[in-house]
């Protein structure tokens, strides 16, 4: 897959069927500050794509545009060939963090069950919904915490609940905004394992700061710093990263892990 698209920056290689996500000349600005300029890329079914870029570069904005939570100033975004407002019901979304009221009385299970919601959810929760929410929590290692108040969980456990909430939706596209920001290594591995278990049909788009994670987990990256480029990870050269992050590239190297032009990563003892 990497080689077949190596010649292209916009990801418009030969794929059968409609793209899952299609950005067509999309620009967006907060007031007068442009955040995304002329984004043009497609993501196809079964692809695993990572979104990288500096802080304030527009990564979360890109996800919110995909979800129809923000409306582009120019251009068009299609999800599964539909408008974002229609297509997003097939998307599982894990936000970086949620603003929630710590006194709001919901359990981890209640939160996970919200992934089963649709505009036609009337009346009480069905046994099947409850069972799948339990199963998703168990997959994230939270079987014992299901009945606990959401607010009483640790930051990492809460994020695991939010991932479970996205998994129970049985979505075809999963959007993860920094899924490993608050979780420990074990939880990260559990997440990766459960994502793999979901099969090849699932399309996954992950926002990440962790370039090592990018290089070992995904074949394609979307680089966002106002401009948006889709590359195979193999073509993510050091020069490209420097251009993307400016000075921050040094910080990455101080973490003893950085990407080289062959798509691997080095460990400096």
């Amino acid at each position, binding site marked *: 897959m990497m080689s077949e698209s190596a010649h292209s920056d916009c990801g418009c290689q030969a794929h059968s069927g409609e793209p899952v996500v299609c950005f067509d000349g999309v620009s967006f600005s907060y007031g007068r500050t442009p955040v995304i300029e002329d984004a043009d890329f497609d993501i196809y079914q079964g692809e695993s794509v990572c979104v990288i870029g500096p802080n304030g570069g527009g990564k979360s904005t890109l996800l919110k545009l995909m979800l129809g939570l923000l409306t582009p100033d120019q251009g068009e975004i299609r999800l599964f060939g539909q408008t974002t407002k229609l297509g997003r*019901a097939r998307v599982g979304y894990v*936000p970086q963090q949620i603003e929630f009221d710590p*006194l709001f*009385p919901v359990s981890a299970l209640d939160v996970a069950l919200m992934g089963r*919601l649709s505009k036609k959810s009337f009346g009480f*929760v069905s046994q099947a919904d409850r069972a799948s929410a339990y199963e998703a929590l168990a997959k994230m290692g939270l079987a014992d915490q299901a009945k606990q108040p959401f607010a009483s969980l640790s930051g990492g456990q809460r994020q695991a609940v939010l991932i479970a909430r996205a998994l129970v939706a049985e979505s075809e596209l999963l959007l993860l905004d920094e899924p490993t920001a608050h979780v420990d290594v074990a939880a990260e591995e559990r997440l990766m394992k459960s994502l793999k278990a979901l099969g090849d049909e699932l399309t996954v788009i992950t926002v990440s700061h962790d370039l090592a994670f990018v290089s070992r987990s995904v074949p394609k990256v979307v680089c966002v710093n106002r401009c948006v480029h889709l590359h195979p990870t193999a073509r993510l050269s050091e020069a490209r990263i420097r251009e993307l992050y400016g000075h921050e590239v040094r910080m990455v190297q101080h973490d003893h892990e950085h990407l080289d032009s062959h798509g691997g990563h080095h460990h400096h003892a």
Partner: protein
Amino acid sequence: MEATIIMLEFFKALLDPDLGFLRNALLLGLIGSIPLGAVGTFVVARRISYLAAAIAHSVLGGIGAALYAREVLGWSWLHPMLGALLAALTAAGVIAAVSLRSKQREDAIIGAIWVTGMAVGLLFISRTPGYIDPMAYLFGDILLVTRSDLWIATGVGALIIAILLLWHRQIVAVCFDAEFAAIRGVHADRIYLLLLLLTALTVVTLVSLVGIVLVIALLTLPPAIASLRARSLGQMLICSIVLTACFVLFGLGLSYSLDFPTGPTIILLAALVYLVANGSNRLCAK
């Protein structure tokens, strides 16, 4: 011991054929405690007591306009409670629009809606011939409770419960995380409006018993007490309904025996229990 005597006296009075108003008041309170506890739970959990208060106060505008229309325009079919209902629903719609769409200072605008409703009501009342005491509507008067209030409360209460039974999952999801609910296809803004409309309906059902000002305390204090211990929204809701019913029953009993005004007695009882519950909760936590 004394409390038992007071309540026994009250139960005897309830059976007295000459004191029908007392039975009506108690029935209204008990019927009303179901929507009050249920909707109050969502109001407290979502922290929109302030919006509920604004809706309740603007009800006076509707009552004033209805009284005026009955006396001056001869619209005798216009029950003041119907005017209250229309005013509350309108206020809920405007407040939902302001709270969802306005880029201005939301709290200032809602404060303005609150007072505007009251001012409109007082103006209409001042122009209505005959003496009408606005105090009765502000703080409640059990002599105002009529059979038709009971029918209205039963109908409105049943409607509220039916809506909650159907839509509670969507309401909970929107209250907890509106963004995610919207992604799941729920019309988050409409559900929020629905919650405010339910609040408006709830407030109106009990206005004649405890009044516009005090109904807010009865809407928010029982769920606040329940939330100290409840582990789920369902527990909080059931506990709130039971508490509200108890406050109405014992508040009415106390006010009858001690000859206190009913609304303030019920509210003070609720406030006292809240203080004690909060205090003991803090002690237990230490």
